[in-house]
């Protein structure tokens, strides 16, 4: 096991760095917007009236706290005690709404009139369209045109919620390109628009702000685990990582608990060496993507590589700078999970526990047999989303 350097910090610095990753590599056109957010986000988030409103919506609208469920049959299968943090039971079906509730409240306090967002699987787009409907703000969501085809139910949901869904037709027509288009939209609408980034990516302060909104996951896990086991700390916390927002939330309150191993499952697609993969830490190098210095998949010439995963939510060539730092410092264990392994884990959880997970989440479950678990180990898996949206994909394997 890697020995954690005592000075290693996982707090973001004033300039937005986690170790050597992070920062705000943005064109001047975005500077005023990002700077306005940077100057205000902590004060807004720490304001008691904001916290009261945020907490009330998490309880009454999102349905928090989400249960921490002891998955007994799965535990028997993997040979350890496995708890599932049921983010799939959040309103809209995934953890994404924790962040969109928080960010739309920030946007309102900054007097923004319009929201722009990107989405991959459509979960973040739906969560954004949902809170925009709730707050009566205009909503524009960019989505890769390939993703619009493979996640059609979510496109329909966003439209039903009143959002305008704009296809991103450049590049690979997936999440990376949707993010580019959303950033361009923000450049073109600098004064009255807030960009709700859906993951712990983008320029500072986004990775920190999103991680803080998602940190409710580990905040609840600690008290729930204490009640159930007598200890706040499991041996492992496991989550899937595309950009890494559910992982950031599930890890947040354990970052400075060296006895808790943090396990990230990345999408290996058809295999790490197949040329059709999204396993960023296995294949990437340090570079700058979407406003932060992180680890990203790229050519020798610094062109961003088109990733591939069966899961639209993990189909991203980078990871959040916090995760790059977890990888770099040895604080996190990263596993690359193939499409087939994820699908098998999705079927396994469905049959053992009666829970159909999102294919993204299934990548986290597929890491369990690779971790060398002992029977005495307590493991928390962040069950980030439900699998309804993925039925068409799962059905091919029935």
């Amino acid at each position, binding site marked *: 096991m890697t020995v954690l350097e005592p000075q290693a910090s996982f707090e973001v610095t004033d*300039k937005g760095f986690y170790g050597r990753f992070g920062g705000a*590599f943005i064109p*001047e*056109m975005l500077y005023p917007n990002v700077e306005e957010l940077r100057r205000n986000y902590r004060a807004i988030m720490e304001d008691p009236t904001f916290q009261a409103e945020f907490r009330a919506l998490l309880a009454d609208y999102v349905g928090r706290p989400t249960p921490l469920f002891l998955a007994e049959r799965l535990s028997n299968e993997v040979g350890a005690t496995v708890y599932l943090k049921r983010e799939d039971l959040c309103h809209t079906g995934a953890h994404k709404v924790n962040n969109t509730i928080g960010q739309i409240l920030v946007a309102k306090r900054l007097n923004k009139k319009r929201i722009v967002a990107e989405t991959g699987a459509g979960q973040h787009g739906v969560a954004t369209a949902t809170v925009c409907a709730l707050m009566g703000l205009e909503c524009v969501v960019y989505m890769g045109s390939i993703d619009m085809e493979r996640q059609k139910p979510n496109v329909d949901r966003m439209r039903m919620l009143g959002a305008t869904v704009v296809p991103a037709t450049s590049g690979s027509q997936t999440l990376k390109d949707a993010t580019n288009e959303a950033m361009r939209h923000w*450049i073109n609408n600098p004064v009255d628009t807030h960009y709700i980034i859906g993951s712990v990516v983008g320029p500072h302060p986004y990775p920190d702000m999103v991680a803080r909104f998602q940190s409710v996951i580990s905040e609840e896990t600690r008290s729930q685990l204490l009640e159930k086991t007598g200890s706040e700390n499991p041996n492992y916390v496991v989550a899937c990582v595309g950009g890494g927002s559910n992982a950031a939330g599930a890890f947040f309150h354990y970052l400075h608990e060296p006895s808790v191993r943090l396990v990230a499952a990345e999408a290996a697609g058809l295999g790490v060496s197949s040329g059709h993969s999204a396993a960023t830490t296995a294949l990437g190098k340090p570079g700058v993507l979407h406003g932060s210095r992180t680890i990203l998949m790229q050519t020798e010439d*610094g062109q961003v590589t088109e990733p591939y995963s069966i899961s639209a939510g993990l189909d991203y060539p980078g990871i959040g700078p916090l995760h790059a730092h977890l990888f770099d410092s040895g604080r996190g264990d990263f596993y690359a999970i193939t499409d087939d392994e994820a699908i098998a884990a999705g079927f396994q959880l469905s049959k053992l526990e009666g829970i159909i997970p999102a294919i993204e989440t299934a990548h986290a479950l597929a890491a369990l047999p690779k971790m060398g678990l002992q029977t005495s180990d307590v493991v928390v898996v962040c069950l980030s989303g439900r699998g309804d949206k993925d039925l068409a994909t799962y059905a091919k394997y029935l």
Partner: protein
Amino acid sequence: MEAQAVATQADSALPTQNRITALFGRKHEGLLNVYFTAGFPNLDDTLTVLEGLEQAGADLVEIGMPYSDPVADGETIQQSNLQALNNGMTLRLLFEQLANCRSRVSVPILLMGYINPVLQFGVEEFCRQCQAVGVDGVILPDLPLDLYLDEYAPIFRQYGILNIFLITPQTSTERIRLIDEQSAGFIYMVSSASITGSVSGVSDEMLAYFDRINAMNLTNPRLIGFGIKDNETFRMASQYANGAIIGSAFIRLLQEKGTDQTQIKAFVEAVKGK
């Protein structure tokens, strides 16, 4: 060492006779900077277009280093980037193409692009190559001022490469002063809050912004970019700054009509109104 640490770009630029600084020293009005993407429309067109622009009377030339994710650029320039990459364009190849360009052209040359390919190439090696082939300045929109000053300014200074900064209608007065202080060569005035190629015409809002900047009496000359597409917009911009930058409109010409010298000359002359 301490004196060096506080030196601005301008201090170290002077002894190297940077072509951009020299140009603005002798010409103050109606300067035209034309952007084109390296390796576009065909891989080997870079030098042809560069020479064509000098002969046509462009005052500066901005060569785009193609990138897979050019977030500050609109569709026209994005497509040209993609096509250049598909042609096989790389930064290494660009420096090879430009290796002997100074025996053929004397126009000031800027490289414009995004930070990631430069980081992978190595910032110092990039600056060294720029100096070796005769590139005078660079525009890297996603390398903001503070990160440039914290990490890279001494390297750029060492090789005499000017880093050109952008300002926009939303840039605060305080920040414009800071950018002016740290700039050499010229300041790139983005005409409106937008990506490239997305603006049509000159609005009252833009004129108010141009007036506001004029009234600040900045140390550096200014070129206005974004939304410049013809003689009318060029003349308008030139009334408020030392000149203007044209990009998407020229890329469309190359796309539609190729790199024919007479076409390039006709385009530049039409914009300048000769």
